[in-house]
Each structure stands twice: as C-alpha cells, then as structure tokens.
C-alpha cells in the first residue's frame, strides 16, 4: 500500500496491465508524451512506440482503429483526452463498438477501454466540462464505470482492461489530485458493486464520480450533528448496484441521488424509478434528486460555481430528505 494521487493510481493500474498482457496497448493524442494529465507518464520508455501510440487529432479513427485492432485480437486502451471530444467519434462508439458483437452474432468482441476524463475542472467552460454518462447507461452493449477514489479508479481500470466487454471509463478530472491508499499490485474490482462510504439510517444517499467527494464531505459534516446518512458510491452506473440501493432505501425510507450531471434525464432518474418500482409508490417518505440545472457549463468562476453541486447544497438536501416525516 502507498498513498498516491488518483492520476498515479490510474498510471500504476494501466502500467501493470500493459506489463501483464502484451496485447494491451494505448492510443490517443499525446499519450507518448505521458497524456494530457500524466496518466501515461513513462509508458513510451517502458513499452515502445508500437504500444504507446500518439495519434493525430482524429477522434473517429482513434475510436474506430481501436475497434479494428480489437477485432483482430489486441486489447486497446482508447484515450479520448477529454470526454467532450467523444462527440467526434460517436459513430465509432455508438454504432460500431457497442454493436459489433451483437449484430455479427457473437463473431467479434470489442474488447476495448474508452477513457474519457469528464466533468468540471479548472473553469474549462462548455466544451470541456460535461458529464453525460447517463447517455451511455442508455446504450446497450457497454459497461459504464465512473469511480471517485484512487483505489476504486485503479481497481476498475484493471477490471476494464481485462474485460471482454467494451468499458467506457469516465476518469473524474476534478478528482485527479485526490490522494488515497492504493495497493502496489492492483486487483480488479467488480463492476456493479457499490462502495458504502458511510453507514446510517437517516437517509440513503446515492452518488458516483466527482459528486461523491462533495457528498462524502457533506455526510461527514452532518454526522457531527447526529444526521447519519447511508452513502453509496455506485462506482459504475452500468451495471449498477440496484440491490444495495434498494436494500438501503427500504431501511431508511428516504432516498437522495446526487450527481454533477444535469438533473433532468440524468441517471438519478433511473435510480429513483427503479427503487420506486421495486419498493412500491408508498414505500418512501422522501425522494429527491440533486444535479446541475439544465444549462451549459459557463466559464467564469462564479457562474460555474452557481451550477456546481456543492457540499452546502448536498447538506441541505440531505437535511430535507432526512427530516421528512411519514
């Protein structure tokens, strides 16, 4: 074990897997220079230019070439640099990667990891800040991972690289500098198993990715006041740990889902709908979602801050849900 940043944890996980399996390689812009965030630092020296391929700014072909290379038996890590650029590769992702195995009757496997650093980060404005992970939970054929801690990020990245299914891996940019304990040898974490951040009976709070940090802070602060929330970090939203969430909500009878993405049509809507369907319409005393308003992300710090799901907003929402009476 050692205490490292999330970026170092992710670097460690990918390096370990490239050493373990010579079929694993990485392609994307600037990856041979260590990647935009340093998540591939030292890879060129360790693995050579055939396995660490700095590509042209050709998102369609970064994505599609990764697929083609998977179809002949390699296991590419497709680096999108920033999530928002995947819009230039949506045909290759949505029409091709997500569907090849199915529409060819199981003949080919798109065993790729698509890494897409997402979310608000250093006032990057409307085209470098989005969180649209819910789109991909809606897309059959893919796994959608959205971790929030260094250990979870490393463990899920190892699982993603070893997965025969395509994995869309949402690196949380804003948490890259967060530190945590990570094993020297990273074991894969299963998809679809939530991490219980803290236990309590006051309310069930479900979150993932960047919002998990703020939720953790808010819940820790409220615990000092005696409001003990049951906090679950989903870690992946497809598959997602429906059983853990339903069991917790059945116990607390109060449900709050928090995500950085726009609230309308976000994955929180799915979580709420499933819990209500499973437990029945009268089972919960309070149900709430907390996400961003349905507006693009602005540049100016106070404008961006106005849209962020902050510790204060989360604490207020937990109080409200916890206070609801029968």
């Amino acid at each position, binding site marked *: 074990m050692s205490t490292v940043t999330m970026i170092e944890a992710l670097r460690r996980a990918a390096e370990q897997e490239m050493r373990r399996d010579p079929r694993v390689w990485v392609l994307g812009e600037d990856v041979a220079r260590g990647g935009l965030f340093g998540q591939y630092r030292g890879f060129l020296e360790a693995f050579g230019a055939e396995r660490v391929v700095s590509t042209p700014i050709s998102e369609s072909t970064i994505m599609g070439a990764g697929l083609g290379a998977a*179809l002949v038996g390699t296991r590419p890590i497709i680096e999108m640099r920033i999530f928002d650029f995947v819009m230039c590769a949506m045909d290759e992702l949505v029409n091709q990667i997500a569907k090849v195995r199915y529409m060819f009757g199981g003949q*080919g496997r798109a065993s790729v990891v698509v890494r897409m650093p997402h979310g608000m980060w250093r006032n990057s404005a409307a085209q470098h800040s989005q969180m649209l992970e819910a789109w991909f939970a809606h897309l059959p054929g893919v796994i959608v991972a959205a971790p929030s801690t260094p250990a979870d990020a490393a463990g899920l990245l190892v699982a993603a690289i070893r997965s025969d299914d395509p994995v869309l891996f949402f690196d949380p940019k804003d948490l890259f500098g967060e530190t945590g304990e990570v094993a020297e040898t990273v074991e894969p974490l299963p998809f679809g198993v939530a991490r219980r951040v803290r236990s309590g009976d006051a309310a069930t709070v479900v979150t993932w990715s960047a919002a998990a940090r703020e939720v953790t802070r808010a819940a820790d602060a409220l615990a000092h006041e005696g409001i003990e929330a049951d906090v679950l970090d989903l870690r992946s939203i497809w598959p997602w740990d429906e059983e853990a969430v339903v069991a917790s909500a059945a116990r607390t009878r109060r449900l709050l889902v928090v995500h950085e993405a726009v609230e309308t049509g976000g994955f929180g809507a799915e979580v709420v709908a499933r819990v209500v369907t499973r437990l029945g319409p009268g089972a919960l005393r309070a149900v709430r979602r907390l996400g961003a308003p349905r507006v693009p992300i602005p540049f100016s710090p106070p404008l961006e801050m106005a849209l962020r799901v902050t510790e204060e907003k989360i604490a207020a929402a937990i109080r409200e849900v916890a206070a609801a009476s029968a």
Partner: protein
Amino acid sequence: MTGPRGNLGRAIELLRTMRRIRAFEEAALAGHRAGEIPGPLHVSIGQEGVAAGVCAALRRDDRITSNHRGHGHALAKGAQPAPMMRELHGRAGGYCGGKGGSMHIADFSVGMLGANGVVAGGIPIAVGAAQGLRLLGSDAIVACFFGDGAINRGPFLEGLNWAALWRLPVLFVCEDNAVAAFTPADSVTAGAGAVARAEAIGVPAASVDGNDALAVLDLAEMMVAAIRRGEGPRLLHARTFRLLGHTSTDPAAWRDAAEVEAARTREPIARLEAWLAGAGVEREALAAIAAEAEAEMAAARREALAAPWPTAEAAFADVQDIGAVAAPA
C-alpha cells in the same frame, strides 16, 4: 503474357465469382419481392468485377471491411451463400444468427470483418485492424471497401492519413459506382476525386475500369504485393456502375435511361465472358458456370426459407457479459 490474362484458369475463377455474386443477389431480389426477405436490401448488380478482382488478390488470412452493399465482398472473400442467405431471411443459422441481416454480414472465419450500415464506417476499423495485425506480428493485410460517397466523410481523410503515417498494410478500395444513394456522385464531390485526395496524403493510388475484372485483379495484385513488402497503404479506385436502385425498393426512375442502357453494355460479366470466348473457352462452358451459380443460389434460397426462425431468447444473447439483461421468462 503475364498477369491473369495469361492464366485462363484464374480468369474462369473470376467469372465464377462474379456469376455467384450476381446469382446470389438476383435470388435475394426475388426473395425480397416475394416478401420473404425483410428490411432494406442493397445489391451490387453491375459492380461484381471489383469484389471479384480485389478478393482474388488476397490471402484467406487477409481481412476485409465492407459497406452496406457488401454481398459481393463477402462471397468473393469466401463466405458461404447458405448462411448468408439465412441471414438475409432473418433465420437461425445465419452468419449473425439473424441479428444483422443484409447490411451486417460478417464471416470472421474467412477474414470478413463485417459489412457496415454507415458510409465510411469500415475505414477506421480497417486501419486499426492493420495496426493490430502488425502489433501481433502478422503479415496479413486489410482491404477496405467503400463507395464514392465515403470520400466525402471525415473518416476517409483520417483513415488515409493514419495508414500513411504508420505505413500500415491497407488496400483502400474506392468502388466508384457513380451514385451516392440517389445523387450523382460528381454533383456532390469537388476536385478530382479519390485518387487525387489519396495522392495528396501520400498514399499511392490508381484508377482502373472496375468492370474489367481482369484489370482489377492485375492492379490489386500489384498493390497487394507492394503493401506486403511493407511499402505502406495503396488506394485502388475502381470505376463501375450501379445498374439498379439504391435499395431493392428504389426504381431509380430519376436516372437517365440512355445512360443506364449504355452501362449495361459495359457490365463486367458479359465482358469477361466475351473475353474468355475470344480466348477459346466454349460458350457452353460459360453457360454452365452461370447455370451452376444459379442452381447454387436457388438452393441457398430454398434452404433459407426452410430454416427455422431464431427463438426470442436469441435477441438477448451477445449483448454483453457483464450487465446483460435477461430474457423474460
């Protein structure tokens, strides 16, 4: 005489491939008209010389990617008509278990990595397959079939640049049938076209009469040899003509009847038959090749019609291993 013109046996094989493609697609059209084949059906009648000529230059372990008009590419690469026909009919035992249909025929066992319903969709996949093959130490190459419409999509520029940068073993095949869906290709394409665009990126390219299957094979063999020597990608531009509509339900009534009639006189099968007859092959032997192909495809059609439908549970298979939804009980 060198090349395929000096080898009557290879010329006869080209004819047989084209006859089989033609007979397969005519049988499919008949099935579609009869309501036996659902969905859209894009046939390549008149374009068989390109698929036959290019694939005859490939090894079995070479890969191809194809487009929505890909029956000929699949057959020429070695895919079998019976599972193809079952697939077109949506039946169990089709190449894709009835989940792909005409637009998604694939046979990975012969290197056919799939037809594609998106124009230019196969180009990034082809260059990546070539990159993967190199990483695995293989000397197989990848041929990438696309139409004249694809050269106006971004992946064409990206894919050619990509293949040229790393000198990847890719044969780009622009099958120029003169129409992009319902629109004459030259009315929506600026500049001098595929060859000029490829050359601007540093990919050696040449045009050929795509209705002269022998000429296509000649050029493809030269290009494939260069690619296998490690000289990087090539682009083969084959001029041909789509004799029918965009889909089986498109009468293409907007087209100039005289132009279509003139094109019929240049279609590739009659041309190769005339050449073979001139080289001394009996007309009866040529007719027998056609009859054999028609009998083979008629049998494939009958067999497909007799094949069972897939069970509903099959709709839930092969989505994903982790996070798959179960079929309803």
